[in-house]
């Protein structure tokens, strides 16, 4: 129900949307200043009602959003959440739906690979540079194949920008891979051992998955920062991503503040869908973590199995050497060879365990955190709206008092303030409904992707297990005649 009806100022009660607004009644008209609360207002167009615009927000405010609809909502932002990194003010104009639908129906034709890690510099100032190659036929890209060099902090910077732009609107922004001080220090110090090679490979793979997931999101794919990241040869260094920078510390403070707020906001959930989904994601979070932990344990034990098999192979070889019966000695040496091949098999399988399943689960654990974050954003939007209503009420009371006190100049100010806060209430409600709508769509997309990802990965994984078993059969069948030949 429209805010003006709720406040019992307007007598015209309509079914879903207040026609006062549609007809441009002054009551809820807004000036650009009232709508923009920060310097980072993005939309050049006004927030006022537009009859002929199919994207009339009010028209759709109470419609049931189907999860399959490819509708695009104009990306309007009012008052972004406290973003520390200076975001280049980008003009995003509301797009027409048709264009977006067409691009959606195109096959998702973009391939991104992250490769060729190279160490630059040395000592503690060293860093790794990765080659990012984008191959695509999509028109938003300037060329169909681009190669750029990026370092880890560039990826973090990209995420930071996207999060500050989209998260408060309810978009699930894929999180970037985590920092690792220990891992990186080893690489910096120049140890060319297996663990640093593995670390770099793990990170390279994670960065690749991160980019693919980011561009899979239809809105993020078109984001100028993403395009710039993928295409431009020079990228301004994202300094504020460092953990110990001023920006980093501010980020931590804000995170803490958010956590406190979350506990104090007691939201009146009127929408059962949100309550259900939130509970579902809480449960899924716990269960995925458990599954992830079990898979990590499998990776570890499989590596151990490989090591122990190799160790047994050596021991069997020594035993074969010591054995004085010729045929048995030969068979034992061959057993040692078989076990050596098998230990390599186990090692390969453990890589499959890790890269196919464990890392994917890790990604999803972090994604779920992002999803939960988006629900929190909705709560914040709701709280803001409620706060605005409280303020409005106070202003109205103040005005009423002033009316009795008969102070005409102060009265005008009061009336102005009322108008200002009415606008804020209206904006708050709009934002709340917008974010709710976005979240419904995002969650739908997330769940579809999750199911698809899992199905694909589990098949790949089972196929890797099949391959291992096939090799085992081969090796043992080759050994059997050797065992039988002992005479």
């Amino acid at each position, binding site marked *: 129900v429209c805010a003006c009806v709720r406040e019992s100022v307007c007598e015209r009660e309509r079914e879903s949307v207040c026609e006062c607004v549609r007809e441009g009644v002054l009551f809820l008209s807004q000036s650009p200043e009232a709508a923009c609360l920060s310097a980072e207002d993005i939309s050049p167009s006004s927030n006022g009602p537009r009859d002929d615009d199919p994207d009339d927000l009010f028209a759709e405010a109470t419609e049931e959003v189907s999860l399959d609809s490819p509708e695009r909502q104009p990306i309007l932002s009012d008052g972004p959440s406290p973003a520390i990194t200076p975001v280049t003010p980008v003009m995003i104009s509301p797009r027409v739906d048709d264009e977006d639908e067409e691009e959606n129906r195109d096959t998702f034709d973009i391939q991104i690979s992250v490769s060729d890690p190279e160490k630059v510099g040395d000592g503690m100032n060293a860093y790794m540079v990765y080659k990012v190659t984008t191959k695509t036929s999509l028109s938003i890209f300037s060329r169909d194949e681009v190669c750029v060099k990026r370092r880890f902090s560039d990826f973090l910077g990209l995420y930071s920008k996207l999060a500050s732009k989209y998260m408060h609107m309810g978009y699930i922004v894929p999180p970037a891979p985590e920092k690792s001080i220990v891992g990186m220090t080893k690489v910096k110090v120049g140890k060319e051992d297996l663990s640093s090679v593995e670390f770099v490979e793990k990170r390279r793979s994670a960065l690749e998955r991160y980019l693919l997931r980011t561009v899979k999101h239809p809105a993020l794919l078109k984001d100028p920062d993403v395009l710039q990241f993928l295409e431009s040869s020079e990228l301004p260094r994202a300094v504020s991503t460092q953990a110990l920078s001023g920006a980093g510390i501010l980020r931590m403070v804000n995170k803490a503040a958010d956590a406190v707020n979350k506990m104090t906001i007691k939201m009146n959930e009127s929408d059962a869908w949100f309550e259900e989904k939130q509970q*579902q994601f809480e*449960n*899924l979070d716990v*269960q*995925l973590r*458990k*599954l992830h932990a*079990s*898979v990590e*344990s*499998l990776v570890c*034990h*499989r590596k*151990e*199995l490989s090591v*122990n*098999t190799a*160790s*047994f192979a*050596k*021991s*069997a070889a*020594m*035993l074969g*050497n*010591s*054995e*004085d*019966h010729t*045929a*048995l000695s030969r*068979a*034992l040496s061959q*057993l040692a060879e078989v076990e050596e091949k098998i230990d390599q098999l186990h090692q390969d399988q453990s890589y499959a365990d890790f890269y196919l399943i464990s890392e994917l689960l890790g990604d999803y654990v972090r994604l779920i955190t992002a999803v939960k974050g988006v629900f929190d954003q909705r709560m914040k939007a709701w709280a803001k709206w409620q706060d605005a209503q409280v303020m409005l009420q106070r202003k109205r009371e103040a005005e009423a008092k002033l009316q009795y006190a008969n102070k005409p100049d102060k009265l005008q100010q009061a009336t102005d303030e009322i108008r200002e806060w009415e606008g804020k209430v209206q904006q708050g409600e709009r934002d709340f409904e917008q974010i709710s709508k976005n979240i419904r769509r995002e969650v739908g997309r997330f769940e579809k992707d999750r*199911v698809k990802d*899992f*199905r694909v990965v*589990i*098949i790949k994984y*089972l*196929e890797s*297990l*099949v391959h291992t*078993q*096939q090799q*085992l*059969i081969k090796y*043992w*069948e080759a*050994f*059997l005649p050797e*065992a*039988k030949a*002992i*005479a």
Partner: protein
Amino acid sequence: MTSISEDSDKEKVRSVSVDLNNDASLVIDIPDALCERDKVKFTIHIKTTLSSFQKSEFSVPRQHEDFIWLHDTIVETEEYAGLIIPPAPPKPDFEGPREKMHKLGEGESSMTKEEYAKMKQELEAEYLAVFKKTVQVHEVFLQRLSSHPMFRKDRNFQIFLEYDQDLTVRRKNAKEMFGGFFKNMVKSADEVLISGVKEVDEFFEQEKIFLLDYSSKIKDATAKAEKMTRSHKNVADDYNHISGAMNSIAADNNTAFKKHLEKCAEVFEKLRKLEDRVASDQELKLTELLRYYTRDIQAAKDLLYRRARALADYENSNKTLDKARLKGKDIAQAEENQKQCLRKFDKLSESGKKELTSFKARRVVAFRKNLIEMTELEIKHAKNSMSLLQGSIEILNSN
């Protein structure tokens, strides 16, 4: 040699060694065993055509401690110094299952019904595996004795088999046990003796070099095989947890995806069973084989030690005789002593040679049999895994 193992392949023989029941005149097996708390009671079943026994077919219950008593009496019998004495079976070790049972009891309240039932099943399987192992090893010990021309006639062996009451009275008391410990300590010092003594006989020289080296290598191989088996079991455990975690995610889903997840959970559960089977078969055929022969090699080394001891005694007796001749006193006594030592040494050398030769033959056949069986089982399990996985992939793809 090959014919023996072929026969044993057809029969259902569980021994790690060669088929030791090929002589129908005295057939021993352990068809049953009962586990009561700390004690395991084995039911020994004997079938014999020998007149030295009162009945031709009978059974008798025996405890592990009875086996140890029998082994020790045989070791202490001077007459058998020239023989490889079958190693004593190790004490039944139910520590693993017992720990699990404890955990099960403690965690009963915090587990779901399915988890509890599953854990109980696992526990029973582990229990059964330990059980099978210990029965096998006790059985082989008796069969080694029954198939050896000298041991089978041993009086104490007959008592062990026939005495229809508890053998506790005849078992070692604490004092004797300490004597055993002491003897073992002295023995290890005497390993130096074995390597130190100048060997005249080429055969024994070779055997000495071989046994000393082989003994350390097989001990190492046993330890590494044990670690490998344990890793397999850990992997199986992980499959179990993964299956459980998938099931709990599936429980929350209400879509077609739920069926998909449940199917995946099922696959992991089956994989776990297969991996468990691989681990236990590997343990039974490979690790147990190595364990057994580590003990047998030690028994062979003991034979060498006794012979080396006898040689040292003979050399000492020579010195004593020379001294007596010089002094002109107790010459006859010294001569007699020397003759005895020589006789003993010769006897040990002669039977030792026979024993060590047949030991090698026995070892080769046992390794062959177990390596073949292990390989065939590995192939079988891998094929089963493959068909399980391929079938599941098909089902999941068609969903």
